[in-house]
């Protein structure tokens, strides 16, 4: 296994990279103008966080790679994002549900990371947390609004939750990387954050009149990099195309 710290930083940066990319796919085609602006804001925040995480990953790795080299020149098996964030946008409801499920984890995780024994990580977490707190507020309101809206919006949000809930569990699985970081006080044990996450979900979904699926089956393979979904390859083909086609160019 490669250096756990490098793995961890790639996980953080790849989550925001892949989700930021997905959200940016909405550019110009949102349901209302205010949503175009808000989605672009979220994508911008996530891309900014990506730069911080992946630059630090490159520094830790010590092989001269920066955030762009990591984002645009790795292939699918080197990506460490959770499967949830690479799922396609679907309709606006699915995009918002994916964002809410991620934001709720992200906020809890960043909050804990603020007291990381690694000062650089704590600083990135503190900066990101300000943005993510707002992301969660917005997606909470939207999930409640659409869940408790019309019959159609309710059904669409329930479908989105049913479709995406099997990807929640992976965010809370603990593996050897997590154990190593947790032992050094760098990052929390993800499993320890699950109870507060579940409490938040119960509260929000009850207001949204949505039912949390009974099965807690969880797909895995994203954060370990062992088995991503087919969707990620298509995203990388698009995202990395210019850098791959013109490797000598500076943009």
């Amino acid at each position, binding site marked *: 296994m490669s250096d756990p710290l490098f793995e961890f930083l790639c996980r953080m940066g790849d989550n925001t990279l892949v989700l930021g990319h997905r959200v940016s796919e909405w550019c110009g085609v949102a349901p209302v103008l205010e949503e175009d602006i808000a989605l672009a804001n979220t994508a911008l925040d996530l891309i900014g966080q990506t730069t911080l995480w992946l630059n630090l990953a490159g520094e830790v790795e010590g092989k001269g790679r920066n955030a762009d080299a990591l984002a645009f020149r790795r292939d699918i098996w080197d990506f460490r994002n959770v499967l949830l964030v690479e799922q396609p946008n679907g309709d606006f409801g699915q995009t918002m549900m994916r964002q809410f499920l991620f934001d709720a984890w992200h906020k809890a995780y960043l909050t804990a990371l603020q007291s990381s024994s690694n000062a650089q990580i704590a600083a990135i977490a503190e900066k990101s947390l300000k943005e993510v707190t707002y992301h969660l507020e917005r997606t909470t309101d939207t999930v409640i609004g659409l869940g408790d809206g019309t019959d159609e*919006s309710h059904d669409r949000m329930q479908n989105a939750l049913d479709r995406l809930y099997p990807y929640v569990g992976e965010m809370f699985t603990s593996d050897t990387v997590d154990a190593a970081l947790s032992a050094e006080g760098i990052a929390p044990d993800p499993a320890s954050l699950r109870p507060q996450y579940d409490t938040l979900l119960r509260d929000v979904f009850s207001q949204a009149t949505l039912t949390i699926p009974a099965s807690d089956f969880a797909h895995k393979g994203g954060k370990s990099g062992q088995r991503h979904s087919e969707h990620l390859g298509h995203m990388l083909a698009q995202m990395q195309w210019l850098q791959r086609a013109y490797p000598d160019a500076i943009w």
Partner: protein
Amino acid sequence: MYAQMIKSTGKGVKSLDEMDPEERAFQERINAGGKIEPKDWMPEGYRKTLIRQIGQHAHSEIVGQLPEGNWITRAPTLERKAILLAKVQDEAGHGLYLYCAAETLGVSRDQLTRDLLTGKMKYSSIFNYPTLTWADMGAVGWLVDGAAIMNQVPLQRTSYGPYARAMVRICKEESFHQRQGFDIMMKMANGTQAQREMAQDALNRFWYPSLMMFGPSDAESVHSAQSMAWKIKMNTNDELRQKFVDQTVPQAEYLGLKIPDEHLKWNEDRGSYDFSEPDWDEFFDVLQGNGPCSRDRMEARNKAWDDGRWVREGLLAHAQKKRSRNMAAE
């Protein structure tokens, strides 16, 4: 500005003596450099012309998201992706201020949106052209935003207060957009052979469509004469086009790129460049909906609006439920 061929009253400009007292006071206020505010009296023609002009500008910002949005997911670095996203976000914001400015004239954003989606109202011809390479992101910022700024800067002094104020903010952002476009062009023009070819190709494709953005010569147009008397149009199309060419040619030289016009020549007597007119038949074809991307753009906007219907309805229904729950609790 992204407004072309805006129709006004279609009648000649009246002299002050021909006006009734109300209209005369209105015109004198404009002549003295005063601002007209939403609650002030205004001629119906002034109001309608402004709605057409501001509406077309707003629609252009909205549709204008699409050709650049086309490259956000393929931007070559994280920084370029962030800059492009921020730029497209600014355009959505411009659309929003402009719709708000139009609303002060008594037309709703929903109505204007419907008029765009049914094709009743137009948007700038430029957004019906495709963006094919990354250099096009440079060319759009450099040329398209550059042409827009030519018109928007004087409009900061336009007679209608809300429009003038919206334009102040828009101009600040547009000039940033133009600089970032030029920055992309510099990287491309000074880059590899392939990048230089992309840059030249982008200039070749965007040069004449950018000249068309100012619209055909309106020296004889009664519509433009009225709009200029009302100070909702500050310069003729030819004046602005000339200014744009004079500004852009040295920039192209600096980049080492060639403007695709064999007749382009410095005219010592005029102190300006002589240049070839764009193909106005192509321009009118584009306005008729026959631009290379006209159908794609309208389909994309209509699809976004139709797909978003359930979201708008859902959020509205929720707001109403919340209101009635709050009332029941009181």
